[in-house]
């Protein structure tokens, strides 16, 4: 029997050794050294909370996926918060008339498979996403009517209507250029397995939900890639991600919970870097019908009752900024007067409630997702307590994300719901179009002819300055009408190894060549 036991054990051990070999058996970083070790290593390791979704750049809406893709695919233009639109694949561009834009491509740009980038590739790429309504990014590209090839390096983009935000659209998710010939001859599945872009890095290996490894592309048209190898690791558990950055297992860890900031700051060799993000937390309120929130005084009272500053300080450890608009700095059309400010006046809130006929108190339903956003449950509980202070009893309904999003999509929420919105367009249009009469129906039911006119006019206004003014004015009215009460903008928090110079971007993109050794 003893013999049987030991031989069984031996078989187990052999099996396990076999399994490890099949996984490649390579020894990866994270060997538990000090963060200061390997300070000169030309290998960069970045940890995110999730793996990339796919290499189908048109069929995802995941910021962290785009953050990886930007190293493999180039856009025609890049949107720089300081310089505005800067050249990437496009040498120059011009807005010819309301519906026409002319672009000239850089010459000598090659894809990872050796193919040269031409206007045909641009036509193929943009028309794919502009015409296929089953792609997740269709909504942001359907404004494009046609791409006309003028020569190898010149093309026109025609839009259905005048489209002032076209450049914003062309510098975000789904705008990477795809190799037409490769995809047409090898098929889409082959491309998904072995993608080819024009970017500084190409795919070396992708082990799903584990790591994605990039290597430099020698024929890159721009500056020579800086890293010998870039690894994007997927580590879903927050505390594990923090531990990896503490031990030097990864160089950069994204989405650090505020409660772990101190742990990182206390450890030598690593620090925390944070930056504002595009995400704004808000309450959406029903502005019509039998809902108590249909009364503007009630909406104002809710706004006045919530101390946004206190939520940011106590729950986010200061990693956020109170705001009264969703169009925050860095976006076209931002109204900076409504940023970094709040209206908090619980006494006046009580008065307003009394005026509205709720001197004996008011009951509202507040729906919120649980576990979706940073400290969402805690924030809602704090808001509930603040509302209680002025006499509003909020019946809070915390929902797991998938049921929340189902009810959200069906527009089934009652008085108020809590949500965060991002803005990958970096333009006020995306942020405000949800408050147009058509889109607001069934959600906030917001209907103010003046705002409607401003938003509709701005949407097709080709005069950039006037357009910004229209959007700013609209935000002022919205801040008073309160179909959405904006709470605070959330910061992105990163844990970073001290060997690196790393400045996070508002877009949360991780251009690895902008991360440098000290």
């Amino acid at each position, binding site marked *: *029997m*003893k013999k049987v*036991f030991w031989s069984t*054990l031996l078989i*187990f*051990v052999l*099996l*396990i050794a076999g*399994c*490890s070999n*099949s*996984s*490649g*058996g*390579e*020894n*990866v*970083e*994270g*060997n*538990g*050294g000090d963060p200061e070790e390997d300070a000169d290593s030309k290998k960069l390791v970045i940890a995110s909370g*999730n793996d990339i*979704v*796919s290499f*189908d750049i048109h*069929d995802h*809406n995941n910021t962290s996926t785009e953050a990886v893709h930007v190293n493999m695919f180039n856009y025609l233009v890049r949107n720089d918060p300081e310089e505005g639109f800067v050249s990437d694949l496009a040498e120059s561009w011009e807005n010819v008339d309301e519906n026409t834009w002319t672009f000239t491509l850089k010459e000598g740009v090659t894809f990872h498979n050796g193919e040269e980038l031409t206007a045909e590739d641009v036509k193929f790429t943009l028309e794919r996403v502009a015409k296929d309504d*089953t792609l*997740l990014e*269709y*909504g942001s590209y359907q404004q494009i009517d046609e791409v006309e090839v003028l020569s190898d390096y010149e093309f026109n983009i025609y839009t259905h209507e005048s489209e002032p935000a076209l450049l914003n659209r062309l510098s975000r998710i789904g705008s990477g250029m795809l190799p037409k010939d490769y995809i047409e001859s090898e098929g889409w599945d082959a491309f998904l397995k072995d993608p080819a872009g024009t970017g500084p890095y190409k795919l070396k290996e992708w*082990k*799903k*939900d*584990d*790591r994605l490894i990039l290597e430099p592309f020698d024929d890159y048209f721009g500056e020579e890639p800086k890293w010998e190898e870039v690894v994007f*690791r*997927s*580590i*879903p*558990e927050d*505390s*594990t991600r923090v*531990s*990896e950055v*503490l*031990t030097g*297992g990864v160089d950069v860890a994204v989405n650090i919970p505020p409660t772990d900031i101190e742990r990182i700051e206390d450890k030598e060799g690593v620090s925390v870097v944070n930056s504002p993000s595009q995400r704004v937390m808000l309450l959406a309120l029903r502005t019509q019908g039998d809902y108590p929130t249909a009364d503007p005084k009630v909406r104002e009272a809710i706004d006045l009752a919530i101390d946004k500053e206190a939520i940011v300080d106590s729950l986010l450890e200061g990693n956020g900024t109170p705001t009264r608009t969703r169009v925050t700095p860095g976006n076209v059309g931002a109204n900076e007067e409504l940023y970094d400010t709040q209206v908090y006046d619980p006494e006046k809130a009580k008065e307003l409630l009394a005026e509205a006929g709720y001197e004996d108190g008011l009951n509202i339903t507040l729906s919120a997702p649980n576990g979706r956003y940073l400290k969402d449950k805690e924030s809602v509980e704090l808001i509930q307590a603040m509302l209680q202070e002025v006499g509003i009893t909020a019946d809070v309904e915390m929902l797991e*994300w*998938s049921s929340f*999003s*189902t009810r*959200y*999509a069906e527009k089934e929420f009652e008085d108020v719901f809590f*949500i*965060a*919105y991002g803005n990958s367009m970096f333009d006020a249009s995306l942020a405000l179009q*949800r408050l147009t009469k058509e*889109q607001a129906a069934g959600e906030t039911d917001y209907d103010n002819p003046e705002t409607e006119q401003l938003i509709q006019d701005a949407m097709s206004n080709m005069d950039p300055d006037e357009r910004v003014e229209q959007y700013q004015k609209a935000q002022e009215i919205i801040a008073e009408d309160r179909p959405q009460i904006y709470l605070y903008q959330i910061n992105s928090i990163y844990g970073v190894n001290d060997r690196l110079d790393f400045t996070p971007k508002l877009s949360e993109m991780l251009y690895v060549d902008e991360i440098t050794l000290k």
Partner: protein
Amino acid sequence: MKYFVKSLIKTIPVLFLITLIVFILVRVTGDPVSLMISETATDEEREALRESLGYNDPLYTQYFDYMGNLIKGDFGNSHRYETDALNLVIERLPATIELAIASMIIAIIVSVPLGIMSAIKRNSFFDLFITGGAVLGKAMPNFWLGIMMILFLAVNLEMFPVSGRGSLLHLVLPAIALGTGIAAEMTRLIRSSMLEILEQDFIRTARSKGLREAIVVNIHAFRNALIPVITITALQTSTLIGGTLITETVFAWPGIGQLLIQAVNLRDMAVVQAAVFIIAIAVILSNLIADSVYRLLDPRIKYD
């Protein structure tokens, strides 16, 4: 063998029922389209996507389509990865099997000697310590143990890598986290099974013949005590699979558990269905194997 094949056929209705239950559950608990599309999408975009994925068809049509394809071995495509769902699950199998086997080895190495020793030294301080430890081990949630081990052994002492899969060192912490609960369960079982056998007549006979105690314990008693242990080892497979769901997430271990959790979160239905199907087959098979081994070891056991 005949019994094995017969039992295998009997599991077909069970598998069928599992596909039905999982199919309904993933559909009634949330809408995949609203999870895929961004918060700012319009109703038209949502509707187009829903139509293209076939979610507008009545539920029974969707189920018959699904079953029709399943019989052909087609579990459908993952909408997250845009690739064959079954392949995705199978790609992950080695990582999970590796972790499961390692935890089982740890559990066996720990529980067999401790269980036997504490049975022999019954009611001693050692016995008390081991049984106490077993209760503690069983009570500790494996994700908590995992996080604690990461903090002490990987971050503070820097003995092991924090997470990921690669070398044998990467395997140690997740295997311990997952193996501890099983080891605890098995230690208690081996102890009580040994105690029962040590009381029996044939042991007394063996002792009275003047056999050395080591032989009595290791050969006569342990061999008989092993029978229930084999059953429990197989039954622990389901515990193991439940454990890998969380342990894999804590250690960023790219196995079926992590795949399944993420698929559930994103309502990636084809992947959830394929993963649960494969897990069900694993549990059924391990139970069958346990039954067969049991019969081999103890010919007195008969099944109808």
